[in-house]
């Protein structure tokens, strides 16, 4: 009875809600089994062979926290900075367009690892030399915080790629959307806020998810600039115990578990934000 009422109200919406999305859900569920499998593998190793696997997990757990902190904070900054640069890339203002374009081109042409080395080694050295020239005491004693420098380095790099994703998302919308909104008397900002960006973000959602997963994996690069992330802690464990196989098996499984979970989460968000067709 209730079902029949729903159908009468809006048959297309009813079908949409009930048919294809049910299929999507079972697909998502199937992939969660892989997540469970990896989790069980880690659990089995820790429980049945606590030496060395429980020791590795114990030793690297603060590294896991650092990896998550670096990943999430970098990602938040990337989104904010990337959005603004993306808007700059579609701006008619020549100065804004010029600055953001140069930024994107330069950053994309330098490897992330090199950029991290610049932020950790070269940037503090520049501050200290400037301090000497300007005779500012505090600048001369500047000491870079490795985690902060790593977050800045990753965000600055990833925001350049994010800017291009944002630009592509905005440009993929038909010009008629902008024209319709403007013809109703909406300002450019209102049009962006209410019409363009809400559609663009749905389109670029899969790409944003990919970026997050890449960022999570690339965060292992910060291990070379004195950040005690999961990778660096793994290397430290290996060099004290000489157990390369066990160490990197465990570290790989931990990364895999994190990326698989994020993939599933982004898929859920993607499905929820799809345009109703």
């Amino acid at each position: 009875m209730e079902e029949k009422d729903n159908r009468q109200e809006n048959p297309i919406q009813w079908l949409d809600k009930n048919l294809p999305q049910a299929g999507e859900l079972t697909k998502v569920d199937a992939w969660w089994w892989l997540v469970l499998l990896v989790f069980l593998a880690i659990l089995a190793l820790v429980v049945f062979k606590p030496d060395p696997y429980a020791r590795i997990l114990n030793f690297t757990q603060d590294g896991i926290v650092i990896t998550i902190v670096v990943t999430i904070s970098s990602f938040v900054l990337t989104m904010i900075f990337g959005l603004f640069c993306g808007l700059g890339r579609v701006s008619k203002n020549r100065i804004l367009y010029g600055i953001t374009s140069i930024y994107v081109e330069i950053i994309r042409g330098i490897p992330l690892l090199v950029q991290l080395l610049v932020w950790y080694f070269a940037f503090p050295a520049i501050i200290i030399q400037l301090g000497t020239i300007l005779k500012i005491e505090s600048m001369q004693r500047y000491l870079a915080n490795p985690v902060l420098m790593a977050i800045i380095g990753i965000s600055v790099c990833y925001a350049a790629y994010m800017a291009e994703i944002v630009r592509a998302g905005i440009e993929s919308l038909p010009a008629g959307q902008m024209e319709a909104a403007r013809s109703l008397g909406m300002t450019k900002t209102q049009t962006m806020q209410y019409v363009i960006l809400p559609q663009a973000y749905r389109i670029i959602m899969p790409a944003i998810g990919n970026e997050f997963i890449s960022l999570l994996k690339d965060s292992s690069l910060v291990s070379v600039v004195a950040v005690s992330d999961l990778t660096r802690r793994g290397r430290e464990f290996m060099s004290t115990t000489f157990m390369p196989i066990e160490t990197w098996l465990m570290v790989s499984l931990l990364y895999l578990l994190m990326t698989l979970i994020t993939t599933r989460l982004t898929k859920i968000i993607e499905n929820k934000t799809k345009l109703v067709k």
Partner: protein
Amino acid sequence: MTEPIIQIKDVHKYFKNNIHALRGVSLDIYPGEVIVIIGPSGSGKSTLLRSINNLEEIDFGDITVGGLSVKDHHDINKLRMEVGMVFQQFNLFPHLTVLENITLAQRIVRKRSKKESYQNAMLLLEKVGIPEKAHAYPLQLSGGQQQRVAIARALAMNPKIMLFDEPTSALDPEMIQEVLEVMIQLSKEGITMVVVSHEMGFARAAADRTILMDEGKIVEIASHDELFTNPQEERTRLFLSKIL
């Protein structure tokens, strides 16, 4: 004589590829008038229409709407509030429901309350004949229904002028009539309408004046029957012989 509500004075428009799209168009449109513009593709009729609310920036000449010039960019949103526009491709916002499409600009541009804008939207949906689709999304509607929502969305701003840019050209033949009926109904209500269309049925039923454009110029202006029964220009005769 009343003041014209739209004054188009010697307007020229060049596109980036140096095409001279409008070559000195002048036209006065009076309040309540229904103008239909016809002409071959590339004749500049859509460009002229889009210049009226500055979707195309004109290069020479001037257009004023209700005393505001399209060249005064500070007032452009004020001008656009008074000028509704309906597009060939509907251009509804696909991420919003029909109701949200119609209320969005009312709320953020006209600053109406949620309740007022919703009531207004429902009245307009009744008027265009699809109140039951208020909570549907645009992509769930047929082309004809989408275009009627687009008309309701433009009307919701209470414009003094409505511009229609080939409103039925993207529709299947059986849906054209439902949109034309709404437009004919509208033309009887005293709103000023400028319509680019080849729907001669609409022109015959509603137009006060029909304008033929060709190569960026106005070739002939006539009351509708005159244009069809007794065209003055050879170009008009040629064009009509092809479309009728």
